[in-house]
């Protein structure tokens, strides 16, 4: 965890595209209170934009009819919400327990060498971002790496090389 409270403003108002708008309207009927839409809405923004700006949070707050501070709280509490633009390929390396025991550090070190970024950084060409994350629930096939949501299990440096070769 680091401080996630420094939001980025794009300078332009946010709005859902037609697809997310429809999804919002579908989901909102599923909950007895509109505030329940805070997490799903943040996901919709992230699907649409890849990350969540201050304007998007304000949009969600106003659309739901709640305080922007509540959306801000949720967006910073849940660490999967990207609060800044990530690389085209967002690589998450599990750092916890079983993945730790089975060599997640070698994977992080390798990625550091190969793509030149440390956990928490985005490569200058915006192709990659790297993050160490907590347990991904794939302990039986550790170590595990997630790229744009897809899981890659039983990873080692060799497999990682092959994977990186496909990411372009």
């Amino acid at each position, binding site marked *: *965890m680091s401080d996630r409270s420094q939001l980025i403003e794009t300078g332009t108002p946010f709005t859902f595209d037609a697809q997310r708008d429809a999804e919002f309207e579908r989901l909102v009927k599923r909950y007895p209170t509109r*505030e*329940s839409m805070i*997490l799903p809405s943040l996901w919709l923004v992230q699907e649409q934009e890849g990350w969540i700006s201050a304007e998007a949070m304000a949009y969600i707050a106003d659309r739901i009819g709640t305080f922007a501070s509540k959306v801000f709280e949720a967006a910073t509490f*849940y660490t*999967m919400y990207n609060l800044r633009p990530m690389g085209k390929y967002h690589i998450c390396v599990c*750092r916890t*327990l*079983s993945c*730790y025991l089975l060599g997640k550090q070698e994977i992080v070190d390798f990625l550091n060498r190969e793509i030149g970024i440390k956990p928490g950084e985005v490569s200058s060409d915006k192709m990659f971002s790297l993050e160490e994350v907590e347990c991904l629930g794939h302990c039986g096939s550790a170590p595990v790496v997630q790229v744009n949501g897809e899981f890659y299990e039983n990873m080692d440096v060799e497999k990682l090389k092959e994977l990186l070769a496909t990411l372009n």
Partner: protein
Amino acid sequence: MEVKILSAKFDIEGAHNIEVAKEHGAYATLDKLFTMDPAEVTTIVKDSGLRGRGGAGFPAGLKWSFLPKDLDKPVYLCVNSDESEPATFKDRYILVRDPHMLIEGIIICCYAINCQDTYIYIRGEYTSQVKILQAAIDEAYAAGYLGEKACGQDFRIDVTVHRGAGAYVCGEETALLESIEGKKGQPRSKPPFPAVEGLYGCPTIINNVQTIASLPFILAQGADAYKAHGTEKSSGTHLFGISGLVQKPGMYELPLGLPLLEVLDKVAGGLREGRTLKGVIPGGSSTPVLTPEEAQTVTLDYESMAEHNTMFGSGGIVVLDDTVDIVKLVENLIYFYHHESCGQCTPCREGLGWMLKIVKKIIRGEGSTKDIDLLLELCDNIEMKTVCVLSAACTMPVRSYLNKFRHEFEAYVAGGASSQSAM
């Protein structure tokens, strides 16, 4: 040693599709279900001895019976699929390989507790898994198992998937409720318990995925058939996740009560070549570690674990061999719990970060014996002083490492940074 009750369809190609699942018996219990009185269903579940498979092991049927009887509010069912305890990955198999078993279980539970709205809270990290689950739910709606006239009955069942977004604490049932309500996942003080005042202030049952998924078998085969597996007090089977430094890590369905070391040897292939056992984490990262000596006598059930001053937990077993640096492992664990502390209660919020910095200081070779003692004292000072047990989930195992492997901490203190490579 393995049995196939919950995992019966796991190896069937395409069993996440409703047609394949139905060919192999999915939704077959429903005809029987609707001939029964809801109270009868609860009784069968009680009789089966099914205990909550999320980690606490609370009897499932008993939990349901805490719902107030004369209700003027809706009842909610929340299926806990947050599965975020390190070393736990069992529910993922159900979500991906047999989601219709879960949906069938939800229908059974909804009928038993008279619930119309179910929320499946799935951890945000399960990105591809949530798609499979949602597709299965959509199939169930299309087939009429869910919706306005669910299963052809005069009974509505709606199932909504609610995605978390990276917060371990949301596996705690009241944090999960807060999260569905759109808030930060900060656990609530109890009482009131969710069965009385839960989601949106209404009576709510929160059950783990595996618990709910066990219901079709129990209903179909009866309580006795379920109790035929396991021990008297820990009945049935469990999806054990075995990971760490073993030959064949993975998910294995086993009856409760088997000897731990035998399982590690025969099921998980034993230790890697030339290695010796240093310890076993028996039920997820929050359970106190067992030494090789303790591991020799423990069996995989709630009672034996308690006798060994640890917990069955989520059944996520992690094997530690002689290559493991316990001090760095502890750093890894405290890092996790500090990272995941919701930040609500003072002792957990301030204490875990303090503990992490002390361990780092020890690893840097700047620590003293006093720091080891301080860590131990902080475990006591934090534990059970907070709204939820997240802090205890850290302090209980950390204390066990400090007590059982103190010499490793002392070596760092004595040797300084030069003798150890900092990670």
